[in-house]
């Protein structure tokens, strides 16, 4: 037997919390992106844990799709960041207020 599922879920909740706090606290857009990746990984860990606990392959398939979507999201997001940095140097999240009323 292996570790009980509750330990994995607790760890996933901890990782998700750290990622969420980092997303709220940090100002650098790239680091905020990395915190989003942390949260995605926590969700992936939950998927895999429940796939094992319920004896169902669908959880692992969901992680497969999450990985693909995360790759696409990172590519588009980094493209946006690059085009922002091209217009103004030093774009923290506070500098991007062009749409603020």
């Amino acid at each position, binding site marked *: 037997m292996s570790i009980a599922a509750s*330990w994995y*879920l607790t760890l996933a909740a901890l990782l998700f919390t750290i990622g969420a706090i980092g997303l*709220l606290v940090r100002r650098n857009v790239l680091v905020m992106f990395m915190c989003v990746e942390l949260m995605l*990984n926590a969700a992936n860990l939950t998927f895999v844990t429940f796939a094992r606990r319920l004896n169902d392959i669908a959880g692992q398939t969901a992680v497969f799709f999450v990985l693909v979507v995360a790759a696409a*999201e990172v*590519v588009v997001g980094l*493209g946006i960041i690059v085009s922002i940095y091209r217009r103004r140097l030093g774009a923290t999240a506070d500098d991007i207020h062009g749409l603020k009323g």
Partner: protein
Amino acid sequence: MTNLLAAATIPDAITFAVAAVICVVGALGVVLARNPVHSALMLVMTLFGVAVLFVEENAQFLAAVQVIVYAGAIVVLFLFVIMLLGVDRKEAIERDPLPAQRPLAIAVGILGLVEVLLLARGQWPAGARSVSGALGSPGDNVSLIGKSVFTTYLLAFEVTSALLVVAVVGAVVLARRPRHGQGDRGAPEGAVVAPEDASDGPEATGPEPSGPQAIEGEPAGAMTDDDLAGEVMPSDGELADSEVTGS
């Protein structure tokens, strides 16, 4: 919560504990590191820890994909952008325009964690059993996932391929170098803004509507164009990598 060793053997418990510590330390490092490069390397550490946990949970294919796609493609893409933009020399945390936000964010995060842990104490709602097959059915992990992806989730798989194509096109469009002097769309706006910008001075931070327009003209002759033109290539190559390995 049950004991860690309740139903586990000693090597399993040790593996889980080490991987969990690696994950948490890496995650804290992502949030706490001042330098974005250090954050990216700490993210690699967390991803490896999660991959170890995937192996521990009989998801060998996902562990391999995690290392190849996440640590091999996505983090390298992060590092490319960090290096190309030169963000690594900059301190980004010091000036905090919302002083109450940081403790408030930490409080909200801890509150959410406590809430999740309290709600997860009892039975987890599991819902109906899906039709995509049991984890313990004959065949190894890769063939099970392959069967699931190409039968039950075939439509989602095709939609995913369309999403990847859209992402490639979007990355090319976003990272493309803007043409100089040409552009039927930007010309009248620039003509309207130009005298106001000249009267305002070079910085033009004050008036909001002219801000983006005034800055837009700035990097046309700046030095970053060649660097950023080179950036188009790695972002494309990385996406192609992740597409091949991910699908």
